[in-house]
C-alpha cells in the first residue's frame, strides 16, 4: 500500500471532533463490519448552518482521518454547502489517500449525506 500523507497521519493521531452529540439534529450511520468500516456522523444545525459535528468510527486509519476531516469541513457551513462536499474533496483536503483507501472517503461522504437527510426528515416533521 502507498503510504498515508502527513495530513492523514495527523488526523489519525489527533482526530478532530471525535465523539457523539446528545440530542443531535441529524445522525448518519453507514458501513458494516463485513467491509470493515462503520461511521457515525452527528450534526447540530442552527438556522440552516451546521454549528457542530462529531463522529464515531470503527475502521482503518483512512476511515478515521476521513471522518475527522469531514467534520472539520462541514462545521459552520450551510446545509447546501455541506451537501456539495464530495468524497474527492475530503480526500483532497487530506492531501490524497492511497488508491485502495478511496472507498473510505466515499463512506465519509455517505455518512454526511445520511446525517443531512436525517436532519431534513426531522426538520420537515417538526416544521
Amino acid at each position, binding site marked *: *500500500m502507498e503510504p498515508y500523507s502527513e495530513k492523514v*497521519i495527523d488526523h*489519525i*493521531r489527533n*482526530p478532530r471532533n*471525535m*465523539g457523539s452529540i446528545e440530542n443531535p439534529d441529524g445522525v448518519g*450511520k453507514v458501513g*458494516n*463490519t*463485513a*467491509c*470493515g*468500516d*462503520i*461511521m*457515525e456522523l452527528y450534526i447540530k444545525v442552527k438556522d440552516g448552518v451546521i454549528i457542530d459535528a462529531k463522529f*464515531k*468510527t*470503527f*475502521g*482503518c*486509519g*483512512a*476511515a*478515521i482521518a476521513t471522518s475527522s476531516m469531514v467534520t472539520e469541513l462541514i462545521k459552520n457551513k450551510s446545509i447546501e454547502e455541506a451537501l456539495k462536499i464530495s468524497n474527492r474533496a475530503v480526500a483532497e483536503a487530506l492531501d490524497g489517500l492511497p488508491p*485502495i*483507501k478511496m*472507498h473510505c472517503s466515499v463512506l465519509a461522504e455517505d455518512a454526511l449525506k445520511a446525517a443531512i437527510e436525517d436532519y431534513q426528515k426531522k426538520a420537515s416533521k417538526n416544521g
Partner: protein
Amino acid sequence: MKRIYLDHAATTPTDPRVVQAMIPYFSDIYGNPSSLHSFGQEARTAVETARNQIASFIMARPEEIVFTSGGAESDNAALKGIAYARREKGNHIITSAIEHHAILETCKFLEKQGFQITYIKVDPNGLVDPYDVKKAITERTILVSIMHANNEIGTIQPISEIGKIAKEAGIYFHTDAVQIFGHAPINVDELHVDLLSASAHKLYGPKGVGVLYIRKGTKFTPFLHGGDQERGRRASTHNVPGIVGFGAAVELAKEGMVQEAEKMTSLRNKLIKGILDSIEDTRLNGDPIKRLPSNANISVAYVEGESMLLYLDMEGIACSTGSACTSSSLEPSHVLTAIGLSHELAHGSLRFSLGKFTSEDEIDYVLDTLPGIIEKLRTMSPLYRKETR
C-alpha cells in the same frame, strides 16, 4: 523514541554474523558458480557448502536441496512442479483453507488450468484434521500440500500424521515450512514430506533466497525454465551471497533455536496473559499449545486492526493485523475467517511475532502501552457503548 519490532513473522533483521559471511561474495569471490574457471569454482564451493549446511539441518541429502528466490517461489514451484509432472496421473490437489497466499493463489491459477483443488477446513484453533485429508483423497489426487505452521495464528499442524497418510496413498506431500524453518528441528523423513518450502529472511537470513526440498526420485517439472543450474530443476545465476547467507543463518539456527524458542515462549505467554488480563473483550486466536513460540495473535472487540497498528506504530511498536484494510481485497484475513471469527473480530486482530532479540522490557512496554490505545479507539468506536454495558 523506543522502537520495538514485533513483526518477525513478516521478516527478521539479517543477523550481523550472516551479513559478515555474505560480504566476501559480492566483490571478491564474485564468479558465477556455473563457470568452469577458478572464479566460478570458488563461488560454486560456497554454494555447495550452504547446500550441505541446509541439507544436514533437515536430514536431507544435498542434492535434494534446490535454491529459489524465497518462500513464494518455493511454494509456486512445488505445486506447479508436481501438477505438470503428474498431470497424466491425475488433476486433484488437496490443501487447506488457511494456507499462505503463495499456495492459495497458485491453486487458483491451477484451477484455471484444469486442476481440481480441495480446501480442507480447519477447527476453531486452526488445526487440520488428518482424517479429513484422508477422506479427501481420490484416485486422481496427485499432491497434498499442508503448511507446517500458520503465518497468522501460529498454529502448528500434525504434519507427520498427514505425511504418513499421503505416503500410504502413494501421493506426493508438500509442506510450506516457511514460518517454522530455523525455529524448530525438522526431519524430512519423520515428517514424511516429499517437498518442503523455506525462506531465509524468516530466520535472520537475507531476503530474496529460499529453498525447496525435493525428495530424491520425485517427478518434478521445473518452474523457472532455463539453464542447467540446480540439476536442471531451477534456472538462473545463483544468488551466491544470498545462498551463503541462508547457510550461515541455518548454522546459527542449529545452535540457538531451542533456547530461543524457550525464551520466546515465556515472553509470548507473558504478552498474551498480560493483554487478556488487562483488556476486556480480547481473545487469543490459534491453538494455545500447538503454536509457534513467537506468535501472539489477539482479537480485540469493537476496534479495527489497522487503526490499532497505526497507534502502536506511533508509540514505536511494530506489529501486523489481519484486517481487510491492509489488503487490496477488502476482505479480512481468510485464516481468521476460517477459524470462525466474526467479521468484527477478524478485522480487530493484532499479530505480535517475537524474535530472538526480543526482550522482556519490550514486552512490558507493549503491555503498558496497548490498554490506553485500545481505550482511545474504543471511545471512538460506534460498536463500543460504555453506557449500554
